[in-house]
């Protein structure tokens, strides 16, 4: 063991291991592109999480009326909303991570996310 601490194999293994660590972080924490959950935020209410797993229609009651939300596997849209300019409807289908639709009259935002955020809690 008198020839120094590191051989070339050590450097190779260390580099490979560091690469695996970086790849693991990238793979595990980058949100997947496909939307998997719809987050409905309404002023004064708890955010509501709806998985985009099966087709259904939700009706959200707001100060200006009813916002009708259509959910299909992997995507969601604002189908009908009280706003006169149809801004919420014009956002179209939300299907990529982070896409947002807003209905100001109903004080409502809709956002689709790729993955549910990590853990609620961990116990050992």
């Amino acid at each position, binding site marked *: 063991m008198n020839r120094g*601490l590191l*051989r070339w194999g050590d450097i190779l*293994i260390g580099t490979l*291991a*560091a690469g695996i660590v970086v790849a693991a972080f990238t793979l595990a924490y980058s949100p997947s592109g496909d939307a998997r959950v719809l987050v409905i935020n309404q002023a004064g209410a708890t955010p509501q999480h709806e998985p985009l797993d099966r087709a259904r229609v939700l009706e959200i009651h707001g100060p200006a009326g009813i916002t009708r939300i259509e959910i299909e596997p992997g995507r969601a849209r604002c189908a009908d909303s009280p706003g006169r300019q149809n801004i919420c409807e014009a956002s179209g289908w939300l299907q990529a991570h982070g896409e947002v639709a807003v209905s100001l009259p109903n004080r409502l935002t809709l956002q689709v996310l790729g993955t549910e955020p990590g853990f609620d809690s961990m116990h050992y």
Partner: protein
Amino acid sequence: MTGDPHAGTDTRDRAIAALAAIAIGIQILEAAIPSPVPGIKPGLANIVTLVTLLILGWRAAVAVTLIRVVGSSLLLGTLLSPAFWLSLAGAVASLALLAALRPFAPRHVGPVGLAIAAAMAHITGQFLLAWAIIIPHPNLPLVLPPLLLTALITGSLTGILTAHVLADPRIQRHVRNPTANH
């Protein structure tokens, strides 16, 4: 097979027993140290596995490691519990990777590389067992990256410590031919 061709079976067995006893002692001391994050510990007992591997060979390293896993679990009262199986899975995975790297040691790969590889294999083996059987939760892979990073750091540290142990003159007496033993 052995680095010391003059060692008889008795000497070799005694060496394995002594090394396993040291490893059990280290593992139990380590279990008593509170860790900020459960499941993360330095793995100092792996120093003994690596020293055994580089002095007495792979079979002795397997013996020392398995005796350590069973012996320490007997003393800690975790025999056949999930902690024991996780410990065993990690030990088997790291021994398997050490077996694959054995032809390159010590000429091309030194203790640091072996320790990093063993630590990464250890946590991967544990993780696969945990994910497959003990906690099959779809979000469990999210905890793997920080564990791998920890393994990289602790593996480097135990590797450096192993190099220092091997450089000790009292250990060097047993390393008759550092480049020829397996």
